[in-house]
């Protein structure tokens, strides 16, 4: 079980960097789905079967499906224009990874609580999500960034989950699902109103 968990964490770390390097929405959505599957796998190794099933359903299938549907409705912009060069994004992600490893070494962690590699992976995922939100101008890529950041936070909270609070984690998942749903609707409106989902065009509200 321990090896399976470590493999999942390693794959997640790799997945994060690949996301930062991809410029096609299609691939970003696939990587998001893969993240959901990896999170479900990790929950399974920690013996939270019910939650693993819910995560697989919501983060692995429903949310990527929703993003896929939104992308197809827009019929355009399969390639995204990042605010900064892709290489800068990947480098920032690597910087996040180094920072996370440094933080893990610095912080007084509780060995019984966090399995090895979990804390830096969770923090790196959070950083990568934030880099996607800030670094991309496409509304859909920003939503994916939000989802990746949420995944990092979910992973961070995973060791604290106990049987008694499972219902609460489910409520959390549902909240994220509704959030992405609302954002998906907003993206559709943005696509219709601006004929593009490039939020770099949002310039009318400034002081």
């Amino acid at each position, binding site marked *: 079980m321990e090896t399976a968990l470590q493999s999942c964490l390693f794959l997640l770390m790799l997945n994060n960097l690949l996301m930062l390097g991809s410029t096609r929405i299609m691939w970003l959505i696939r990587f998001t789905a893969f993240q959901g599957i990896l999170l479900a796998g990790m929950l399974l190794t920690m013996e939270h079967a019910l939650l693993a099933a819910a995560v697989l359903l919501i983060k692995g299938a429903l949310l990527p499906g929703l993003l896929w549907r939104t992308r197809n409705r827009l019929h355009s912009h399969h390639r995204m224009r990042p605010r900064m060069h892709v290489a800068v994004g990947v480098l920032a992600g690597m910087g996040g990874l180094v920072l996370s490893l440094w933080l893990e070494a610095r912080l007084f962690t509780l060995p019984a609580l966090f399995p090895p590699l979990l804390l830096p992976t969770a923090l790196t995922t*959070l950083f990568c999500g934030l880099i996607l939100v800030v670094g991309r101008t496409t509304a859909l890529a920003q939503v994916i960034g939000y989802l990746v950041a949420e995944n990092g936070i979910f992973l961070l909270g995973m060791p604290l989950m106990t049987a008694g609070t499972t219902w609460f984690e489910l409520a959390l998942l549902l909240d994220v699902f509704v959030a992405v749903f*609302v954002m998906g609707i*907003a993206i559709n409106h943005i696509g219709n109103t601006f004929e593009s989902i490039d939020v770099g065009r949002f310039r009318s509200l400034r002081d």
Partner: protein
Amino acid sequence: MLEALLFLPLGAGCIILLGTKAMCRVLLPLTALGHTALAAWTTYAVGTGAEPRAMNGLLAPDPLGALFLMLASLLFLAASIYAVYYLREEDRLEVHADIHGGPGFTNAPQRRLAACLCFFLSSMTLVTTTPHLGALWVGIEGTTLSSAPLIYFHRHQRSLEATWKYLIICSVGIALAMVGNILLSVAFYTPEGMTAMVEGMDQLGWFVSHARAGEETWLKAAYIFLLVGYGTKMGLAPLHNWLPDAHSQAPSLVSALLSGALLNCALLGILRGHQIMLAAGLGGFSGGLLSFFGLISLVTAAIFIVGQGHYKRMLAYSSVEHMGILALGIGVGGLAVSGAMLHAVCHSLTKCMLFLLSGNILARYHTFSSYDVRGMRWTMPITGALWMAGFLAVAGSPPFGIFISEFIIFKGMLAADSPLLAAAYLLALAVIFVGLSVAVLRMVQGNRPTDMPQTLREPLLSVLPPLVLGLAVLTLGLWIPDWLWNFLRKGAALVGG
């Protein structure tokens, strides 16, 4: 009864969503009335020392929560009465012309607005009544999701832009607050402790009573994340970017609720963290951070209010200012905390009043620019007089309640031996007073505009809610009832007052 408080607006929202336009205009004020009655009962019970609990302790308001619950409920009542007038007027307009000369726009269905208002109230009820920090987080996320369609009621480009900013900035902010919650649990982690924790829902009570056992570094890290996360939603500078956009683009009654009620709910999230830090003996750290962000907000608001030509954005920056004052008051501690509690009450009432009035002005003048609004004392005398009174109240002039609360906070700063902070506070308030007065006086005074119809009456429903709110703030400036002051003191005692 507490369950009814939570589920009444939720159920009403579902019915309204499926119902007709006429139904939503009847059900909305009725729901608000019912909710206010239940909230008053709850607040009375908490004030007399009873400890109402429901749903296995998931809902168990303390004086602090009950205070914000009552405020949210009262403001919702005022906004829902105004909504009856507002929705009727929107119905009457056949073509919605864009104020900035863009293409005409349509509105979202009215029942969706009314239903989302109800869901918004339900989320705020959860936030204010729960002692479970996770449920509080879910409630705050719920307020974001239910208020996003409210901001996008007028479907034009600018409101869509504001909605998107609001959704992304607040969602990422709240996600960071979740990290704060997780780190808080890590700080208290012991295998036995976690077992004890899951037995009840009173997470806050457990954290406070075991605060000394928390690991200091993790507690500090947790508080920083909570402050940044909920601070984004509360509009503390420099995390306030979404606030002027959303408040200026939303329908006025929605802006009133966002500013008067929602910001208080986000503040409550920060106060919960502050409560734990105080119990852990780290009150100096959390109070210092609050004071720092409070001062930054005050200065930022002062910079942006001076010369602000968009009167709804001006009100939004005034909210940033008052959130800064609240953070400062609580950060300083002692007497200033009681002042901050009174300030929260007076600010909510005043800001709701002003935003509702801004809706009247917008409907009559069709402009957001304070430079283009002239002679309000001729064209709309009641709104003009109330707008002037509201300005005096929000700028902290006597005899209104905000003057008293700002003065108590000032006294608290002197008592806490922070003369420099007190001087900076007074300077910022003076600059804001001047900035506000220039715009407001320009709008109210001036000659009677010749191009406007002279005979338009002001509908009762459009001026009654702001009038009542204004009278309440005036009363609080002249006389604070003992029971209210005692209640505020009880709330303040929980956060170091």
